[in-house]
């Protein structure tokens, strides 16, 4: 029987078979950030354990740092400065690679990682951050772990992992203009729930995935964890190999040729079997927007707020009722047209150059509606610099957006900067949980183009109704 891409990568990284479906897996790269990596480095040092291969460990500052122009170690997050300074000291002591404030490689960990060629096809990469699954977009077997497991990976170059079941999700068809990878993943989660992928490692495949540019694949995989998956992966192809070429930590010359020859073998065989298969039809897909407090609470922008009374499952019904109360929404209300107070473009989901270009194409020559606070936070310093070289920052600023330094920013509220009490925000981020973006903030997840169209309208709006001025 044929082997899946996951079978191949598992075998390639297995140091020891521990029985009962559990393996000691070799970990090629570890990435840390100042929020959770700080604790891992500190605990490891306290236990008098050293980082085994510091050359293959990386750390960036993204979660706690401010994103205001001219920022330093001071942050609006109470106690936040200690996370920055302690991470810096621990990273230096451990001898790992640090992308500090002021370093032009700094940025959100999952944006920096492929951008620098640290995440590569076929590598195992872990990070104490749930959105590490993003890197499946370039064919890495990458997953989020806790702090204790991060210590294990740092100290031993391995992790003890029980093999999850396998699933393949095929996204077939062609996306209509204005419909994006973000809409594909929200549709999958809305259809099969936020627990639909629990217990699975998932390959995303199909014609709609194949035709996505690499950055969009990273967006698609980013929310694999919001589907409950252990992780997700897309088989690397020529688009990925072209993307990797010339990246600072990627192999060069003959070494790259050798690597690509190997990477070409990393695809599921035609007769490979998965424990479960799902299909998402992309031909009829509309831009998605969430109406509740779980990513599974999503619907087409041309849809309405659903009625909990029509939900037969008691748990889901109660979850919907709680969500509608939190979001101050009434069943039957059209989603397009809901007034918003803020718009946010950023996060490891949607803050790459292609996201900013797509949003700017709608914002060019237009204005954010009066009373709407709009913020754009590039995902990395490299993204910001590239955007500025193209003049995109001028488009955002002219439209009325704030233009920030790179970081996670207002994807979550850590006690510092936030959206206002009960404000309704349309956001290109990944989590619409209660209080996630601020005190009782009402988050509507959407793609960057839906956020841009909504910012202009001052209401949730369908990006397909605005002509691009790209």
């Amino acid at each position, binding site marked *: 029987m044929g082997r899946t891409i996951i079978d191949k990568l598992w075998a390639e990284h297995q*140091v*020891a078979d521990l*029985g*009962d*479906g*559990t393996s*000691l897996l*070799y970990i090629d790269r570890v990435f840390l950030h100042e929020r*959770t990596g700080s*604790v891992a480095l*500190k605990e490891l040092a306290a*236990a008098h354990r050293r980082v085994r*291969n510091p*050359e*293959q460990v990386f750390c960036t500052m993204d979660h706690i740092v401010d994103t205001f122009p001219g920022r330093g170690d001071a942050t609006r997050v*109470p106690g936040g400065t*200690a996370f920055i300074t302690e991470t810096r000291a621990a990273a230096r002591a451990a001898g790992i690679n640090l992308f500090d404030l002021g370093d032009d490689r700094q940025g959100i960990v999952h944006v920096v990682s492929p951008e620098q060629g640290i995440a590569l096809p*076929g590598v195992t990469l872990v990070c*104490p*951050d*749930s959105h*590490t699954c993003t890197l499946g977009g370039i064919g890495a077997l990458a997953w*989020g*772990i*806790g*702090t*204790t*497991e991060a210590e*294990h990976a740092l*100290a*031993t170059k391995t992790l*003890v992992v*029980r093999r*999850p079941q396998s699933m393949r999700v095929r996204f077939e068809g062609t996306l209509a203009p204005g419909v994006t990878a973000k809409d594909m993943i929200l549709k999958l989660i809305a259809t099969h729930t*936020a*627990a639909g992928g*629990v*217990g699975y490692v998932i390959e995303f495949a199909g014609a709609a995935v194949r035709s996505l540019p690499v950055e969009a694949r990273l967006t698609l995989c980013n929310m694999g*964890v*919001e589907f*409950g998956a*252990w992780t997700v992966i897309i088989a690397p192809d020529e688009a990925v190999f072209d993307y990797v070429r010339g990246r600072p930590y990627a*192999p060069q010359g003959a*070494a*790259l040729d*050798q*690597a690509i020859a190997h990477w070409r073998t990393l695809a599921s065989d035609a007769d490979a079997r998965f424990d479960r298969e799902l299909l998402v039809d992309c031909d009829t897909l509309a831009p998605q927007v969430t109406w509740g407090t*779980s990513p599974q609470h999503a619907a087409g922008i041309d849809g309405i707020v659903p009625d909990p009374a029509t939900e037969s499952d008691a*748990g*889901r019904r109660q*979850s919907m009722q709680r969500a509608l109360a939190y979001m101050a929404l009434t069943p039957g209300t059209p989603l397009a047209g809901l007034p918003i107070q803020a718009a946010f473009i950023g996060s490891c989901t949607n803050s790459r150059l292609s996201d900013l270009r797509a949003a700017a194409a709608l914002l060019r020559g237009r204005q954010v509606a009066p009373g709407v606070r709009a913020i754009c936070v590039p995902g990395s310093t490299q993204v910001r610099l590239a955007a500025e070289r193209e003049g995109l920052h001028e488009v955002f600023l002219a439209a009325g957006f704030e233009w920030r330094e790179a970081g996670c920013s207002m994807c*979550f*509220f*850590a*006690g510092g900067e936030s959206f206002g009490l009960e404000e309704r925000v349309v956001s290109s981020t990944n*989590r619409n*949980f*209660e*209080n*996630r973006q601020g005190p009782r903030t009402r988050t509507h997840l959407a793609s960057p183009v839906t956020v841009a169209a909504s910012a202009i309208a001052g209401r949730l709006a369908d990006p397909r109704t605005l002509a691009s001025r790209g």
Partner: protein
Amino acid sequence: MEKFTTLTAIAAPLLRINVDTDAIIPSREMKTVSKTGLADGLFAGWRYRTLGSRDEDPGFVLNQEPYRRARILLSGANFGCGSSREHAVWALAEWGIRAIVAPSFGAIFQGNCVRNGILPVVLAEDVVADLAHQVSADPAARLVTVDLGACRLTAPDGGTHAFAIAPADREMLLEGLDAIALTMKRDDEILAFQARDHLRRPWIYLGEVVRK
């Protein structure tokens, strides 16, 4: 790590699906670079009336007697989904929770539990609902027993439910093992793997000499 063998305790029902780690410990409650000092912030958004306050909402289950002394939490599917923050587990442990019974768990959270002496027990939704129903009649007297050695949960009415757990996780909890120390015993295997792998995938090894 504290061992887990058997536990007989008050069980608190929090029957919501998709309880995320942002709800378990909001980011704003993670104030220091530390694994401790987190119990106060547990479920802060639900436990307290206003953000940042310590003004308890009497409607929240863990603010009610005798659930304040609960050591077992009963919850809905996908408990602990979302952020990887191990602070969620540290906060639960520090508050006093030693076992969580739910139809499913977020993968990272489940792993974090096992590494911190908390037992995640997977049981069907109707079983968890029935446990919650049984307990609520007299929570202080109608206790739940979890026996990890036998992989069996006993309900207040004496009914028993077998549960599955990965053998490695079970052993780690039963013995209170240090996973890093265990793996370090395999150092020779790791070095041998690196030597083989370096020939096969040299581009992985960033400018370093593999130790022989």
